[in-house]
Structures are given as structure tokens and as C-alpha cells.
């Protein structure tokens, strides 16, 4: 079969990736800048699948809870204020160990903020976001192609570890149109789930729950979750690194910000400046390996569309071995190539 290359936005690429992954249930509520995603799902969800425009974000995430409990590959999408509203449901999904995919196309905050792209929900995404000791796997695509690919990966990881997975993008990634090569493989088959709710014919009843009232039970359950998180940390770190070996300054950026950083790195390399890039693809688990450098004089420059959130994880990963600098803007501001180059030249 010929490879099919189409021009679509990041939002549509996520939707198309979900459908390719066999997502058969989508519930969402309109919010800018992710409206192309909900519209794409409404238009392209196959007849056997289910699309629901929910009455609110809490309803949408609880529908995803129900569909996941029923064994379907299910997804919702929203943007920052809507994701805040979903936090209760995400905590329940994590507690009931239900695989599901949640997309956050971030916009400016706090509060109603604005509809400009931002990366200021990093803490919320990587620290769980809701109540309780839990994590989501957080995937941060840097292009429409990667949005398409990582969404499929997200569904597989969700099923493999029985965990909610967040696709964390921003308004630029969501809205920007880029060529995407579509998979020529058949749509994925939803793996069988022995724990799912389907009626107890021929087996004992299954229960989807996160309530453990008896003394000691919740601690035992939480330790089981923690064991799963440790396994994920050991197996699922993903990152890209570029010109790191001899770099004097290594930029650290994810998503849209990494696109800008990459341009800066190639510009500076072309004039002989020793600059590199680490681009975390999993934000949780945060990649540890690339930050363990032999050369203690190499400096890091973390750049984000926020006032410094991922930089905390870089500090934890570097653990005092190297100097860490930061450049960030938020609320619609995006660090420019010029701002980055000026900051880097002071560090070189």
C-alpha cells in the first residue's frame, strides 16, 4: 500500500492517531484551542464507535471512566480550564486503574487566562493533578506527526499499565498544520480485558472501584500503584537528544518550545557554537539518563512557555552536578530564537 501523507493540524493528528489506535469511545466538551479535535472525532468516529458531546468536562471524564471500565479504548480532550475540571475524574480513573487517554492542549492561565498557547500546566500534568498519590504517563509531542504517533503509543501504554495517559500539547501544536504520514497498518484491535465490566456470565462479578475503607487496604493498594509507577519509570523514559556529546550549553525543552530550541541549536551549530538539546518526550516519567553528564562544566538552559515548571524536574535529574539556567515566558508569550541566542551567548 502507498504511504498516505496528509496535511492536518496537531489536534486532528491526535484524533486520527486515536482512531488508528482503535479508540471507540470519545466524550468531550468544547473549549479553545482544541475544538478541531472534538469536531474531528464527531465526524470520523466509525459507526460502531461512540461519540458524545458531554454536558460538562466532569461529565466527559466520567463518561471516559465508564467506557474504560466497560473495556473500550476511550479518550477525552480539553484545554487547561477544562482539564482542571476533570481532575476529580482523572484521580478516580487512576484509583480504579482504568486505561484511558486524556488530551490537554494547553492555553494561558491561571483562571480563564486566554486562548494563547502555553506550557503552564506541566505541574498539574506531571504531579497527578488531582487528589491522592498517583501519576499519569505524560507524553509531549513536538509535531503533528509525533502527535499522531504518540497518541497511538499512549493507548498501548494505558492498556499495558492500566493507567491514564495524558497527551500534553499546546495551542500552537494543536492548531499548526503539518504533513503527517498515516499508518498503513490495520486499525489496532482493543486487547481483551478480563477485569472489565461486561456482565458476570461464567465468571465472578468484576468491580471498578477506588474505595478501600478497611484499615490497611488502601495502603496495600497504593503500594501496588507505586510498584507500577516504578516499573514505568524503569521502562518508559523517552527523550530525544541532539549534539549533546561535546556541548557546552544544552538546551532543555519539550513540545512546541523544543521546535524553537532545535532551530536555535542548528543555527548556532552552523557557526561552530557547541550547543545541544535534550527534548523530554515523556514528561512523566521524566527522563533521568540524559542528564547524567560526564562533563560537570556543561551548562543547561531550560526553556519553557511557563515561568519555570519543568526546570524543577531538570534540577532533580541533574542533582547539583551541573549549572542550570532558565528562560521562560507565559500568558501568550513564547521565548523567541533571538532571546534564546542572546541568553546562550552569555553562557558560552
Amino acid at each position: 500500500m502507498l504511504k498516505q501523507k496528509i496535511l492536518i493540524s496537531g489536534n486532528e493528528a491526535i484524533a486520527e492517531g486515536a482512531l488508528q489506535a482503535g479508540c471507540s469511545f470519545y466524550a468531550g466538551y468544547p473549549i479553545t484551542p482544541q475544538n478541531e479535535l472534538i469536531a474531528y472525532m464527531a465526524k470520523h468516529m466509525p459507526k460502531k464507535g461512540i461519540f458524545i458531546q458531554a454536558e460538562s468536562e466532569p461529565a466527559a471524564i466520567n463518561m471516559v471512566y465508564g467506557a474504560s471500565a466497560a473495556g473500550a479504548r476511550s479518550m477525552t480532550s480539553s484545554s487547561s480550564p477544562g482539564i482542571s475540571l476533570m481532575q476529580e475524574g482523572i484521580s478516580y480513573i487512576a484509583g480504579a486503574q482504568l486505561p484511558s487517554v486524556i488530551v490537554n492542549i494547553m492555553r494561558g492561565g491561571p483562571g480563564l487566562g486566554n486562548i494563547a498557547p502555553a506550557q503552564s500546566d506541566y505541574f498539574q500534568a506531571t504531579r497527578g493533578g488531582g487528589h491522592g498519590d498517583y501519576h499519569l504517563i505524560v507524553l509531549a509531542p513536538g509535531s503533528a506527526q509525533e502527535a499522531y504517533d504518540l497518541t497511538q503509543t499512549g493507548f498501548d501504554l494505558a492498556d499495558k499499565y492500566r493507567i491514564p495517559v495524558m497527551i500534553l500539547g499546546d495551542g500552537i501544536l494543536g492548531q499548526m498544520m503539518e504533513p503527517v504520514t498515516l499508518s498503513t497498518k490495520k486499525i489496532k484491535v482493543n486487547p481483551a480485558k478480563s477485569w472489565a465490566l461486561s456482565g458476570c456470565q461464567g465468571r465472578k462479578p468484576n468491580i471498578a472501584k477506588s474505595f478501600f475503607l478497611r484499615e490497611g487496604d488502601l495502603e496495600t493498594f497504593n503500594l501496588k500503584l507505586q510498584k507500577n509507577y516504578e516499573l514505568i519509570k524503569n521502562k518508559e523514559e523517552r527523550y530525544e537528544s541532539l549534539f549533546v556529546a561535546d556541548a557546552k550549553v544544552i538546551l532543555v525543552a519539550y513540545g512546541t518550545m523544543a521546535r524553537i530550541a532545535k532551530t536555535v541549536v542548528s543555527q548556532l551549530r552552523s557557526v561552530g557554537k557547541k550547543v545541544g538539546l535534550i527534548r523530554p518526550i515523556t514528561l512523566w516519567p521524566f527522563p533521568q539518563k540524559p542528564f547524567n553528564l560526564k562533563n560537570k562544566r556543561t551548562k543547561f538552559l531550560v526553556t519553557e512557555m511557563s515561568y519555570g515548571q519543568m526546570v524543577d524536574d531538570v534540577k532533580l535529574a541533574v542533582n547539583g552536578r551541573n549549572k542550570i539556567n532558565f528562560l521562560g515566558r507565559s500568558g501568550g508569550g513564547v521565548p523567541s530564537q533571538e532571546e534564546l541566542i542572546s541568553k546562550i551567548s552569555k553562557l558560552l
Partner: protein
Amino acid sequence: MEKIFSRPESLYDLPTHYCPGCGHGIAHRLVAQVIDELAVREKTIGIAPVGCAVVAYDYWNFDCSEAAHGRALAVATAIKRVHPNNVVFTYQGDGDLAAIGTNETIHAANRGENLTVVFINNAVYGMTGGQLAPTTLLGQKTSTSVEGRDKEKHGYPLKISEMLALLPGVVYVERVSLESPQEVLKAKRAIKQAFENQINKLGFSLVEILSPCPTYWGLSPKDSLEWIKNVMQKEFPLGRIK
């Protein structure tokens, strides 16, 4: 000798955690009996609420899901859409269905989701210590309406069943009571009707059950039944609403 009455297969042989005189045990049993009679135990998926009945799945012998407080009908909507040939019902209290979950309730009903709702109205929040519920009667004392419900401060008892009956997606609404054996039998008939409607793919059906909470009414179990009959049923009249 022929055995003509026994525990339904859908109900485990366990003592419940409910207070003496509480209506949940009866309501759980009625649901279990109906599911047995309709022979759908192996197809049934129940949604337990947040509230006193949160561990209803410890007593019911079929697939169940928890839902966050008020979200049972969003969870049920998705489960039923994924498994349209299964029998899906929610079991919710007044705080769950008519306060924190009002949005989910109204919209699931308005979409005409083919679901069955068992709605327990005991006019208080039981699990958390007897606070004012949307269904608390005027003058009724609770831990958060210490002088009694005052229409100026707290508004009126919410008649959510009558509100839902206005929606075209809703096919059946009936209010029943657990105040006497006769009324319990009527309650069972209504629950059965609500499940049959779903099996016949007719749409959204709800049974509101006036249920005693002696602990937070400050009454004996017997006086609680009298209170339902003489006081609560005046505000919430029994019978088919739609």
C-alpha cells in the same frame, strides 16, 4: 416442602453495614429480586453512588462500578453505550442525584439514555452525618439547618422527579415508599417496570423511593415509617409521575 421465598441469587448472604431501620437494605433486596425475576443477573452492571450505599457492590452479586459523587449517570451513560445489550442501572441518593449530580442527571435523562435509575430519597445526607439535602422538608432539622429548613435561607425541597418527567427523553417516573409492606410491594413493581423499560429499549426510567433514615431523623425505626407516611408523603406524593 416447597420453598417459596428465599434470598435472591443477586444478593450475597451478608449482613449489611446499614443502621437499624435504614431503607437501603430493603431497596437493595428489591433490586436484586427484580434482577433475578428478569433473569438478567449475568447481564447487569450496577453503578454505586457516593453516600451510604457506596459499597452496594459488596452486597450485589453482579458487575458493578463506583462513580464519583454525582457522576453515576455519566458513568452509566458510557457503560450502556459500550454495552447496549447489557442491563445498566444507577442507585443514587438525593445528595448524589439531586445536588452535586443534578447536571449529569438532567442531561442523561434529556438524552433519553436507555437506563434505569433507583433514586433513594431519605431527605438527608446520611453518610456524612445528616446534613441538609436538596430534598429536606421545610422545617426539618438537620446538622446544617439546625433551626429547621427555612425557605428564605435554604429554598424548597427539590422535586427532581417532577422536573425530570418534563423531559421528552424520560419514559417512566414513579415515586414509591418503603413505609409499609404494601408500599414495599408497590416499590418492587415500579423497579421491575423501570428495568423492563430498559430491556424493551424504551428509554430513561426512574423510580424515586422514599426511604427511612432513623439515625438522622432522630426517630425510632417505627416512627420513621410513620413520618414517611404522615409527613414526607405529603411533600412527595406517591404514584406514577410519568
